[in-house]
């Protein structure tokens, strides 16, 4: 509500995008307008940015910059952004900015804090970075690089042969990559593929974000519901395609894999390839979503069909379509938030699908104890049907799927911890303010990326921001240097937290001898469905053990995710300890990789970084977008 005539600052910024790949949306049905939270934009000729994203239109193939769009221009803003056009580079910039903002908004909302990249750096988006059929997140640059390529001359699908296809025009690709970026930020160590489910989780998580975000656009969902008469599992429905344009353009004559088919519990145990594993997880979440949607709309369908439950062959009534659409959108938003929130309850290293299942269930339980919509139970059932079992729990009843919470009555609130949490929560609360913009002084010099000295460097290209544990004996304070983290407050919190963790090793189930690295901490503000305000801190602590043998570039780590409330009580200690089984699982996987790739002669040197190279973001996404 405006208080004065000068207060014209809007809440939301509407922008138009392609909701499906442009090849599919020639009909015009799938251009939608989405609304982003309004943030002031600064523009230079080659780039524009808000406080968290920066779009730089640099093309490495021709070493040129393309002119940046001015989203503040009144004529552009008046029409909700430029008209979606395939060959307008400024529209491409608009599109990546819009979709990326939307993804980050969904993360903020689910996580209960403003997602901040390391050191307050902006996430860069480079819509036409190189000529290749790929798009990926580069950790060194903290940038998402989008490629473009000519359609296959011999089998271009619905494209013209040789026509330029831009990966930045696909909502799914943009959302997928930004989700990778966000997950890398939340859990940097997930870039180390210590077991097949780790890269699988990364891919699945990114696909889930892309897919479910699209399902929150009513303009996209309504036509699909109308055409499939409410059946969200219809294999012909465009809702199920992710990255549809790539399958056709690459000459394979059809969109990429679809989620359909009867679940086979044995498949999960048999599957070893990360992309295939990832699809199992995505289909489990999708099925949980569909069964919740069906339960929520059962009464509508009953009313519409007079009790028979089967919609007629004709197009459903528009009112019915609207109601079904809004239920679909609501459920999709709930699923998206549930999956994102789960990341707070995951261990900091070596996650598995079982960890993700338990994290999802616990996160949801924390926010609403009674599962009113049945979403939680539906998810559990869908996972079970696909053979994803929670490990080291007794049974499948909801309770034992929950992570073990600490017994709050048994421990005294810890004043030191309470002070840390309260400082952090204050900082977080300030960040959430709509008028917040980072003070100029806190803008650090962007860390220069490592030079790619040898060819194998850019095959690996990962992980500059992993925090190594500091050697305790040296006595140096741990934490970040001013170059890494310009906010003094956060640096201080890091140091204090490290000290507190050292004092509380036993309680946190940390290894007594190894140094502790504080790999991340953030505040959380959430409103439970009962209206209660939850204010907590999530903190990740990691320890590394040096192993003598060749692990293909991987390190053997253990870690703890600790959740503490504002009173200084530890609520959860989510532990991934050192255990022989974990190390042998990694070794076995490395052995399988070696066996597939070479003929076994000992004199042939193997690349010491081969595991990282095989499952780097670039390599994984290259196979993904084929």
């Amino acid at each position: 509500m405006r208080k004065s005539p000068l207060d014209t600052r809007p809440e939301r910024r509407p922008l138009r995008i392609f909701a499906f790949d442009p090849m599919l949306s020639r009909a015009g049905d799938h251009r939608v307008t989405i609304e982003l939270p309004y943030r002031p934009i600064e523009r230079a000729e080659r780039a524009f940015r808000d406080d968290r994203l920066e779009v730089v239109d640099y093309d490495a193939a021709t070493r040129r910059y393309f002119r940046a769009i001015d989203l503040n221009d009144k004529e552009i803003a008046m029409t909700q952004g430029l008209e979606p056009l395939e060959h307008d580079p400024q529209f491409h910039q608009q599109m990546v900015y819009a979709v990326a903002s939307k993804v980050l908004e969904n993360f903020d909302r689910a996580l209960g804090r403003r997602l901040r990249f390391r050191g307050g750096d902006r996430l860069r988006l480079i819509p036409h970075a190189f000529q290749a059929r790929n798009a990926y997140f580069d950790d060194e640059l903290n940038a998402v690089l989008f490629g473009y390529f000519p359609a296959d001359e011999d089998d271009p699908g619905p494209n013209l042969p040789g026509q330029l296809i831009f990966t930045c025009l696909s909502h799914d690709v943009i959302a997928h990559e930004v989700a990778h970026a966000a997950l890398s930020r939340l859990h940097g160590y997930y870039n180390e593929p210590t077991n097949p489910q780790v890269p699988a989780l990364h891919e699945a998580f990114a696909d889930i974000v892309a897919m479910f975000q699209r399902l929150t656009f009513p303009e996209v969902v309504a036509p699909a519901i109308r055409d499939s008469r409410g059946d969200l599992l219809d294999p012909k429905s465009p809702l199920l395609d992710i990255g549809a344009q790539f399958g056709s353009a690459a000459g394979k004559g059809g969109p990429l894999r679809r989620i359909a088919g009867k679940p086979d519990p044995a498949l999960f145990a048999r599957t070893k390839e990360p992309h295939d594993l990832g699809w199992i997880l995505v289909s489990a979440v999708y099925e949980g979503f569909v069964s919740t949607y069906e339960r929520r709309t059962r009464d509508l369908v009953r009313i519409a069909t007079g009790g028979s439950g089967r919609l007629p062959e004709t197009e459903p009534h528009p009112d019915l379509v609207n109601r079904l659409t809004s239920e679909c959108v609501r459920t999709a938003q709930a699923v998206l938030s549930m999956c994102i929130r789960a990341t707070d309850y995951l261990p900091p290293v070596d996650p598995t699908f079982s960890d993700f299942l338990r994290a999802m269930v616990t996160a949801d339980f924390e926010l609403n104890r009674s599962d009113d919509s049945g979403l939680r139970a539906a998810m559990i059932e869908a996972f079970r049907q696909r053979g994803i079992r929670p490990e080291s729990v007794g049974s499948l009843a909801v309770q034992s799927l929950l992570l073990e919470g600490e017994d709050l009555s048994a421990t005294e609130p810890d004043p030191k911890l309470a002070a840390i949490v309260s400082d952090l929560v204050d900082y977080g609360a300030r960040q959430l303010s709509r008028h917040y913009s980072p003070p100029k002084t806190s803008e650090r010099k962007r860390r220069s990326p490592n030079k790619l000295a040898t060819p194998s460097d850019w095959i690996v290209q990962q992980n500059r921001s992993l925090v190594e544990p500091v050697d305790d004996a040296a006595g140096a304070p741990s934490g970040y240097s001013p170059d890494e983290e310009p906010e003094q407050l956060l640096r201080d919190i890091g140091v204090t937290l490290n000290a507190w963790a050292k004092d509380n090793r036993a309680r946190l189930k940390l290894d007594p001898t190894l140094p502790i690295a504080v790999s991340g901490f953030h505040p959380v503000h959430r409103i439970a469905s009962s209206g209660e305000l939850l204010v907590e801190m999530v903190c990740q602590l990691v320890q590394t053990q040096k192993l003598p043998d060749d692990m293909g570039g991987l390190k053997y780590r253990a870690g703890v995710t600790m959740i503490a409330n504002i009173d200084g009580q530890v609520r959860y200690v989510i532990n991934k300890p050192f255990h022989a089984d974990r190390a042998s699982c990694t070794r076995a996987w490395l052995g399988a990789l070696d066996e597939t790739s070479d003929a076994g002669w000992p004199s042939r040197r193997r690349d010491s970084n081969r595991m990282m190279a095989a499952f780097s973001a670039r390599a994984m996404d290259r196979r993904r977008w084929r």
Partner: protein
Amino acid sequence: MTETLRVRMYNVGFGDCFLLELPGKRTVLVDAGFHAQGKGAFAANDLVDQIVSDVKEISGRARIDVVIATHRHQDHVYAFNSKTWADVEVGEVWLPWVEDRANKQAVGLWKKQKRFAAQLAAAMPGFGLSAADQQDVSFMLWNAGVDVPGVAAVGGWSNAGAMDCLHEGFARRDRALPRFLPEKEPSPESFETPLLPGVIVHVLGPPRNPELIQELDPEADGETYRALALRAAMAGAAGGGPAVAAPFGEAWQVKPDEPGFQLEGEETGRIDDLAQGADAVFAAEKVDGMINSTSLVLVLQIGTARLLLPGDAEWGTWKRILANDAARALVRGATFFKVGHHGSHNATSKTLVEQVLPRKIPAMISTQEGPGSYRNNIPLTDLMTALDGHDIRYTRSDVSPAALPKGFKKGQGDKWIDLSLAC
């Protein structure tokens, strides 16, 4: 009385050329090629003259019953350029199915592969490779049939010429079109031909499934594919201007001298590297490996003999073969093994030697040592040690002791080595 067959391994240097004499005076030629940078005891037409003379000795006429070309690498087919072949009668020609010019998939694949190799060759100067690396890359590219400056070719000889001869050449053929093997799934495929009575031919590779095509597709590594295209264009572009057309016109571009925010040099440097970064040696190895993977893998069953002839098949192909029970059984029953790819590490795995091949069989390695890191490990010492350890007696075409193992006999002037096998 048991019959005998004879395997003659010619000393062609870095290359393969084997003449089989089967009971009933039947002749089979398996590959006839050598690398221009790795010649053995023969030059140009000499090899073909020798083969024709040997065949005449066996059967009295210039006729070879079956000519097999396992794959199109020059070091296996170069000698088919010779004009002498126009006077030789041939029963059948066998080629891997990817050489079928009527198969659209295969044609598309070769088109891409040729483009990839040509772009690598064009982009070579821009890579700033060391002399040793350059040598390796040239070696592999020439073998793939790309014109590489500095490698002297025999007058008018080329890869295309050799392949044309195999498809359409020779004096007269009993079976006009080549057999493209295997002809259908499933693997292994077995057939007999009236030209070789009493012989059963088992084809274990290359597989016909489309997954193989995907693996072989140079565009599977999209970045390298496009980076090479870019670099080739850059090398060809005049005056250091942009080598490729920008995706959007001048009106959209920001002039380089316009003031304002720009990415730091290191940042653009990194993006440029990511965009154009390609490992030339790695790319050349991919080209090499791709063609090797199209190799015919045959087991010729003649009486009690089982000749295992895998061409230059690499580990990927072997994995599939060993995973297939029927194919594995055929490999286990081998009584002779022609070592693949001149004894390189990738063509014969440790598992194959130590666990699958039977003991006490003879083997032959047609090979030649040479300079450079690619040729340094050919033939691989570990492999030869493993063969010894498994009681597989072998000879090399290039270097052999004065006293050969049992069954082997040296030819005059070190031009060949013969092996007699009971069958």
